């Protein structure tokens, strides 16, 4: 407080009455002569009286002190005191950085969450600042926004603050400071107040080392169990699937909780659940199987809800089940044995169907997107080296075939075959007869399936996302299609292709990371619409550039639906951030700013006067009591 100011300073003249009060006190306390009929009787009484002490002399002054106190109180009440406004301080600039990351949704604050407390603290600071100060308010989250500098009590700052909501991962302090510096050139001389929980905020210590940096810390708890992410794997050939969830215990004590997967048509049926123990500070991967009718939306939940709901659930979009499509690239009709095998074994191979295209049409179709899940080059070769996908090369010799060809052999002698390979395990090809074949030398990422002394007659390879098998002869130039080994080889190969789909966390997106299509969008789509399925009012229209887009608005966990023309898909967005899930507030660094003296409220002077008057009355009452007791 800057002191007291008096509304009616003339009331100080009342203190002049202190002089008559003092005079009256001493007049009343003067020594008076009283005649008594017999002093001896008094001396009998006084003989038992303890001699007067200094304490008694002091007690004589007590009524005077009380009277003077009452007089001062009355004069003060008449003077109508009130706290002096902080008019002397020169105007200051304030930069308030408000953490809007998702951890601010933690409900470990009395009657609300960290966000509500942070907003209340900001409002209190704004209310306490004098109107001549200037305030720049910066939201410090995935998106850094700012308003100001304005006077602290302006509507623009209030509405900006009301429009903020926590979301996203991370609070980029440096970025917020750089933006603040752009808007407030004298930032170095300004008071910078960070209102945050400090969780997962890097550079906080260095920030606070500078002068005029303040940190208002919100939040209190850190014992938390959070889902870091989740994914799903459903392979071709199996309608069942596996859901993976990674859970981290941020607390100091081991915990055990139920992990549940919900899904089904309505999305709320319990598909599976299991109680899992989580050691303190450990990260645990949990795998749960899901049934064939799992639905399209899976939600992984942790039991025992705690104060932070944002990472107690993980959202996983399960793509609709479909069989792989087989595309045969051949000049004219495909090999009849191949065609009949694909047709006859459709159910056994668990494929949707097959089609045949010429190499030219294949190239055209590939330019528009992925034409098939498995591509069979029947005596043909790709015009460009394939980088991803599943391929079967039958008698392909082109330069873009991903094998190292070494020569041509007539009537090769099959002397070895890959019986230990998963693809070839039940197959014996000792009866295989071949007219002319190309021979290849298997590379480091390839394994031979059929071998002759000159090299490999068939092999399979696996290079990151490229999976392929190569057969060095045409079917029509061998008896391979006539052997039972051929359909077994095809089925084994297709099963191997299906098994190549590995589960990974990037099946789902993380909060704050951009959502982008995994494949090129159809031509003609100029924009997509992204919808937050938990809040239909949250819709974004995202422009499409080069058949792709990037959407940065996924700031809350949940399902987001992307609508691109006639097509559309759903994806899950999870917090997936260990730093944001680690909710331990940095209270050790808390350094709240010294609030300036607030402006006196109207009527405050009246309240102070009332209190002073009451004090004066109490002093008078005490004086009466003391005087009555001591002097009658």
């Amino acid at each position, binding site marked *: 407080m800057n002191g007291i100011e008096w509304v009616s300073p003339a009331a100080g003249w009342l203190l002049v009455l202190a002089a008559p009060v003092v005079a009256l006190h001493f007049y009343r306390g003067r020594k008076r002569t009283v005649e008594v009929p*017999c*002093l001896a009787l008094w001396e009998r009484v006084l003989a038992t*009286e303890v001699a007067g002490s200094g304490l008694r002399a002091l007690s004589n002054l007590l009524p005077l002190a009380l009277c003077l106190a009452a007089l001062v109180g009355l004069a003060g009440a008449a003077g109508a005191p009130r706290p002096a406004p902080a008019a002397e301080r020169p105007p200051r600039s304030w930069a308030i950085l408000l953490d809007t990351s998702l951890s601010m949704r933690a409900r470990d604050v009395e009657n609300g969450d960290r966000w509500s407390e942070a907003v209340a603290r900001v409002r209190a600071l704004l209310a306490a600042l004098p109107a001549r100060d200037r305030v720049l308010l910066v939201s410090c989250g995935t998106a850094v926004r700012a308003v100001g500098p304005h006077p602290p009590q302006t509507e623009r700052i209030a509405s900006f603050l009301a429009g903020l909501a926590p979301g996203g991962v991370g609070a980029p302090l440096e970025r917020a400071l750089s933006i603040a510096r752009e808007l407030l050139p004298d930032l170095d001389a300004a008071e910078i107040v960070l209102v945050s929980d400090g969780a997962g905020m890097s550079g906080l210590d260095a920030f606070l080392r500078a002068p005029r940096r303040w940190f208002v810390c919100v939040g209190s708890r850190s014992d938390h169990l959070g889902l870091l992410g989740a994914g799903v794997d459903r392979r071709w050939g199996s309608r069942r699937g596996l859901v993976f969830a990674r859970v981290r215990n941020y607390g100091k004590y081991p915990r055990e909780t139920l992990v549940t997967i919900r899904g089904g048509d309505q999305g709320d049926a319990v598909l599976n659940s299991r109680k899992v123990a989580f050691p303190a500070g450990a990260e645990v991967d949990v795998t749960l199987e899901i049934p064939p009718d799992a639905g399209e939306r899976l939600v992984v939940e942790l039991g025992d809800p705690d104060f932070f709901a944002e990472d107690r659930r993980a959202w996983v979009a399960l793509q609709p089940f479909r069989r792989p499509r087989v595309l045969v690239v051949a000049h004219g009709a495909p090999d009849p044995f191949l065609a009949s095998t694909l047709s006859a074994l459709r159910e056994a191979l668990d494929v949707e169907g097959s089609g045949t295209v010429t190499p030219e049409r294949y190239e055209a179709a590939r330019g528009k997107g992925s034409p098939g899940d498995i591509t069979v080059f029947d005596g043909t070769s790709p015009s460009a080296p394939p980088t991803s996908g599943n391929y079967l090369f039958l008698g392909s010799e082109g330069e873009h075939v991903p094998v190292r060809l070494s020569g041509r052999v007539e009537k090769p002698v099959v002397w070895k075959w890959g019986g230990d390979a998963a693809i070839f395990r039940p197959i014996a090809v000792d009866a295989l007869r071949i007219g002319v074949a190309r021979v290849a030398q298997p590379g480091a990422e390839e394994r031979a399936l059929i071998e002759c002394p000159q090299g490999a007659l068939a092999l399979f390879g696996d290079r990151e996302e490229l999976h392929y098998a190569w057969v060095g002869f045409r079917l029509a130039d061998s008896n391979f299609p006539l052997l039972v080994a051929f359909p077994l080889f095809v089925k084994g190969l297709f099963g191997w292709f299906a098994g190549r789909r590995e589960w990974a966390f990037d099946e789902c997106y993380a909060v704050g990371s951009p959502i982008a299509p995994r494949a090129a969008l159809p031509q003609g789509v100029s924009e997509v619409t992204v919808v937050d399925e938990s809040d239909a009012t949250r819709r974004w229209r995202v422009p499409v550039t080069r058949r792709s887009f990037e959407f940065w608005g996924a700031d809350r966990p949940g399902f987001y639906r992307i609508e691109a023309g006639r097509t559309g898909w759903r994806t899950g967005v999870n917090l997936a951030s260990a730093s944001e899930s680690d909710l331990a507030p940095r209270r050790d660094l808390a350094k709240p700013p010294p609030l300036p003296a607030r402006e006196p409220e109207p009527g405050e002077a009246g309240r102070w006067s009332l209190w002073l008057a009451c004090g004066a009355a109490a002093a008078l009452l005490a004086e009466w009591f003391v005087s009555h007791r001591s002097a009658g």
Partner: protein
Amino acid sequence: MLFDEEFIRSLEYLSIVARKILSGQERADRESLRRGGSIEFADHRTYTPGDELKYLDWNVYARHGHLFIKEFSAEENVHVRVFLDASRSMAGATGAKGDFAKRLAAALAYVGLAHFDQISFFPFAATLGDGVRALRGKQRIFELLPFIEKIPYAGTTSLEAAFRTPVPKQRGRRVGLVISDLYDLEGYARGLRLLLAQGLELRVLHLVEEGDLDPGRTGRLKLVDRETRRTREVLLTEPLAARYRLVLEAWLEEVESWCLASEIGYARVLTSLPLEKVVVELLRRKGVLDRR
């Protein structure tokens, strides 16, 4: 004028009680237990040689054969000596106490004079003052009143020194009325004993003024003794004043107890009471006066 007529009339119906003294030489308007030559028969007693034969009751002798002497009650006078304390303390705070004492003394003297008692009046303080002696008859009150009015209140109280001076002895019953505040704490008993030794039947009228009970104010006081002018400073608080009242009450009780133990009639008289009430009611109740 000390009294109005009605009060004087009421005084004429009173007499000073003399319980054991009945030997006045002169005949007075008082019934004596001494059997004498009055016409009012009182009692019989057995004849002893030397008795006058004219008082023999021959009728009794004729009936019973025993000699009895008829006795007749005789009305005797009493010597009443009024001792008025004329020390400075008797003036009181406002003088009212002194006036009251004088009026009371005058009233008692008038009661005696009205009944042909022989009244002597002595003021005293540190010594016994010159008094008025042996007045008889209510007309003598006019001599006495100016004397009483002129008595000044001065000096210190010393009952022992005052009553060491012997008063003139007179034959007959003698009653002493001491009107005083007795503020001679150490010497009042010795002084009263001296009067007892002179054969007086004593009545002490102990005057107490309201102001004696309550000093009336508290705070820093300089107490001045009215008689000796000795001073003492005191911070008088309410508890101290209460303690003083207790000490004063105890002393009053002590005086009364001592008087009763010494067969001295005692009456504590508050000077704030109306004199008529004191004389007509209080002193009668205390046995100092009686209705004729």
